[in-house]
C-alpha cells in the first residue's frame, strides 16, 4: 500500500481509476463513456469560448491610435451556425441519455429477484429462498432485480434511495409502492451501497456492502444464510437480524427506537412511570416479546411502538435470543 492509497483509498482497488470506482456492472461502461463525452465536450467548448475571448480582449484593447469598429453588431450566418450546431449536440445528448435511462428502468426476463426493505436507517435484503441479510450478496453475471419498499414500525415511512456506485445504478425507494431497479454485476468484489435520499438523523450512516461472488460461492452463501447456526448464541443473533429486532434494538448500547440489548441482562431495570424495577431475566423477555406494553422500561414509555411477537417467535426461539443477550452482557 502506497502513501497515495492512504489518501485516495479508491486507488487501493486495482479495478478502480483515479476518478471512478470499478466498473462492476453492465451499465458501467456506457455511463462512464457518456460521462467522459460530456466532460470533454464541456472542456472543449470552454476553451473554444474562453481562449478567443481573452485573445480578442487583448487584440482589440483600447490604445492610442486604435479605433474600434462600431458597426460589427450582427452576423446572421455566424449566429445561425453557433445556434444550430449546439442544438444537434443537445438532441444527441438527450437521445443517448433517454436510451440509457430506459435500459436501466426495464429489467430483462429471468432475473434474480431480491426484496429490499429500507428503514430509518438500515437495509434488509430477502433472497428467493427466504434467506435474510443486511448486506447484499449477488452472483456475478446474473441480472438481479431489486423490488424495493420503505417501511417503519412507527411513524411515516420516508424516501430512501439505493445507490451502488460500482454498478452506476441508483433508484429511489418510495413509500406506498414497490419501486424496481435492476443491474447485472460483471466483476466479483466488495462494493459500497449508500442511501442517497436524505432520510433523517442517521442518513449519512445508512450504508452497507455489496458482495459480488462467483455463482457457486453465492449459492453456498445463500443456502447457509437460510440455515440457523448451530451455536445457540449465534442462532439468537441470526433470529435477531431475521425477525426484525434489529430495526429497533441496537447491540452496541445506543438508543434506536427501543432499548439496546447490550449490558442489560441480569440487571434490575427501572420501569416507566416510576413503577419500580424489574429483573431482566427470561420471564421478563418472554413477557415483553409477547406483550410489549405490559412492563415498559423507563425512557421507553411509547412501548406500543413494538408489535406483539406472540405466534411469530416460539418459546425456544426466545430462549435463543436470550442466549444472544447474555453474550452482550458487558
Amino acid at each position, binding site marked *: 500500500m502506497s502513501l497515495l492509497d492512504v489518501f485516495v483509498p479508491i486507488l487501493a482497488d486495482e479495478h478502480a481509476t483515479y476518478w471512478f470506482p470499478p466498473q462492476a456492472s453492465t451499465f458501467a461502461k456506457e455511463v462512464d463513456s457518456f460521462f467522459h463525452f460530456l466532460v470533454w465536450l464541456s472542456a472543449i467548448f470552454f476553451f473554444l469560448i474562453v481562449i478567443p475571448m481573452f485573445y480578442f480582449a487583448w487584440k*482589440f484593447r*483600447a490604445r492610442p491610435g486604435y479605433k*474600434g469598429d*462600431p458597426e*460589427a*453588431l*450582427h*452576423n446572421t450566418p455566424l*449566429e445561425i451556425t453557433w*445556434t444550430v450546431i449546439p442544438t444537434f449536440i443537445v438532441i444527441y445528448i438527450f437521445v443517448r441519455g433517454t436510451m440509457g*435511462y*430506459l435500459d*436501466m*428502468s426495464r429489467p430483462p426476463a429471468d432475473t434474480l429477484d431480491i426484496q429490499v426493505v429500507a428503514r430509518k436507517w438500515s437495509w434488509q435484503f430477502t433472497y428467493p429462498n427466504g434467506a435474510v441479510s443486511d448486506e447484499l450478496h449477488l452472483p456475478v453475471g446474473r441480472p438481479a432485480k431489486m423490488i424495493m419498499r420503505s417501511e417503519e414500525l412507527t*411513524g*411515516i*415511512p*420516508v*424516501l430512501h*434511495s439505493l445507490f451502488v456506485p460500482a454498478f452506476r445504478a*441508483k*433508484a*429511489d425507494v*418510495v*413509500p*406506498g*409502492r414497490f*419501486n*424496481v*431497479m435492476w443491474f447485472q454485476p460483471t466483476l466479483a468484489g466488495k462494493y459500497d451501497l449508500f442511501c*442517497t*435520499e*436524505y*432520510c*433523517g*438523523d*442517521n*442518513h*449519512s*450512516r445508512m450504508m452497507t456492502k455489496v458482495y459480488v461472488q462467483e455463482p457457486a460461492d453465492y449459492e453456498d452463501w445463500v443456502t447457509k444464510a437460510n440455515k440457523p447456526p448451530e451455536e445457540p448464541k449465534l442462532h439468537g443473533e441470526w433470529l435477531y437480524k431475521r425477525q426484525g429486532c434489529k430495526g429497533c434494538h441496537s447491540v452496541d448500547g445506543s438508543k434506536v427506537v427501543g432499548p439496546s440489548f447490550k449490558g442489560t441482562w441480569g440487571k434490575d431495570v427501572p420501569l416507566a412511570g416510576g413503577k419500580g424495577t424489574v429483573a431482566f431475566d427470561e420471564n421478563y423477555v418472554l413477557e415483553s416479546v409477547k406483550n410489549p406494553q405490559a412492563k415498559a422500561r423507563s425512557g421507553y414509555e411509547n412501548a406500543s411502538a413494538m408489535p406483539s411477537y406472540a405466534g411469530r417467535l416460539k418459546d425456544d426461539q426466545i430462549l435463543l435470543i436470550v442466549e444472544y443477550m447474555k453474550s452482550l452482557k458487558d
Partner: protein
Amino acid sequence: MSTVVNKPVEIPSYQTSDEKDNFLISTRGFLSWALTLDHKRIGLMYLVGVSAAFLLGGILALMIRAHLFLADGVFLTNQQYNQVFTLHGAVMVFLFIIPSVPAALGNFLLPVMLGAKDVAFPRLNLGSFYLWVTGAIFFIVALFVTGLDTGWTFYTPYSLDSKGPVALATMAVFILGFSSIFTGLNFIVTINTMRPPGMAWFKMPLFLWATYSTSIIQVLATPVLGITVLLLTAERILGIGIFDPQLNGDPVTFQHFFWFYSHPAVYIMILPAMGIISELISVHSHKGIFGYRFIAYSSSRSRCLGSSSGATTCLPAECLTSPQSSLVP
C-alpha cells in the same frame, strides 16, 4: 355618482440643482427610509437585506465545511448538521439568490434604464420589501427556536413526520413567494406601460429584457410553490391524504409540484446575471452588444422552455412507475 380618482402617488423628486444632493441624503431619519416609496432606496434596503441573508447562509455553509473537516465530524451532532444544511439551503435560495438581482439591482436600475420616474406601483414595491422582511423573520425564528431538518426542498413524507417547525418555514416560503410575485408584477407593468416614447421593445437594454423574462417566471411559477407548501401544511395539520402514503397519498406528487416552481426558479437566478454581463461588457468596451436581437429572444425563450421543463419532468410514463432520483432535481 361621484367618481373616485386615484391620486397618483407623490414621488419626492430628488432632482435639484444642488450637485451635492442625492437620493441618499435628500431626506434624513429612520422613517424617511422605512416609509420611502423611492425605488432606489427600496433597492438599497433590499441590497442590505439580501447581503445579511447571504452572510447568514455563508456562515452556515462554513459550519458545514468546518464540521466535515474530519471524517467523523467535528462539532455538530447528526441532527444539528441536518438543521444547518437545511437552513443554509433555505436561506440561500429563498432569502438570497431569488430576490438578490431582481429585487436589489432590478429596483435600483430598472426605472433608470427605462427612463421612467419610478416603478409603476411604488407602494406595492415597499410592501413586497416588507413581505421579504416578514418571511426572513419567520426563517430566523425557525432557525433559533427549533430545528428545521427537512432539507430546503421539504420533501414528503419526511417533512410530514419531522418534528421541526415545518409549518413555520413553509409559511416563510409562502410569504416570500408573494414578495417575489409582487416585485415581478410591478416590473412587468412598469416595462409594459412606462416606457417613454421612442423606447421600443428592441431598444431596451438587455438587462431589462432579462428582468422582464425573470418577472414573468416569478408571476407564473411562484404561485405553484405557494399552493404546494399550503398543501403540505394542510397535510401535516389536517391529514388530507394527498402526499402521505399511509393515507393513500403519493409523496412523489410533492416532488413534481415542487419542481414545477423550482426548475423555472433557476432562470430567476441566472437570467438577470446574464443581463448584467451583457450590459457590463458592452459598456466597458464602448461598443454595442453583438447579436442584440438573438440575446433578447434567447432570454424570452429560456423563460418559455424553463417553465415548461418544470412540467415535463412529470411527463415520461416511466416516471410514474419508477422515479429515478436522478430525474427529479
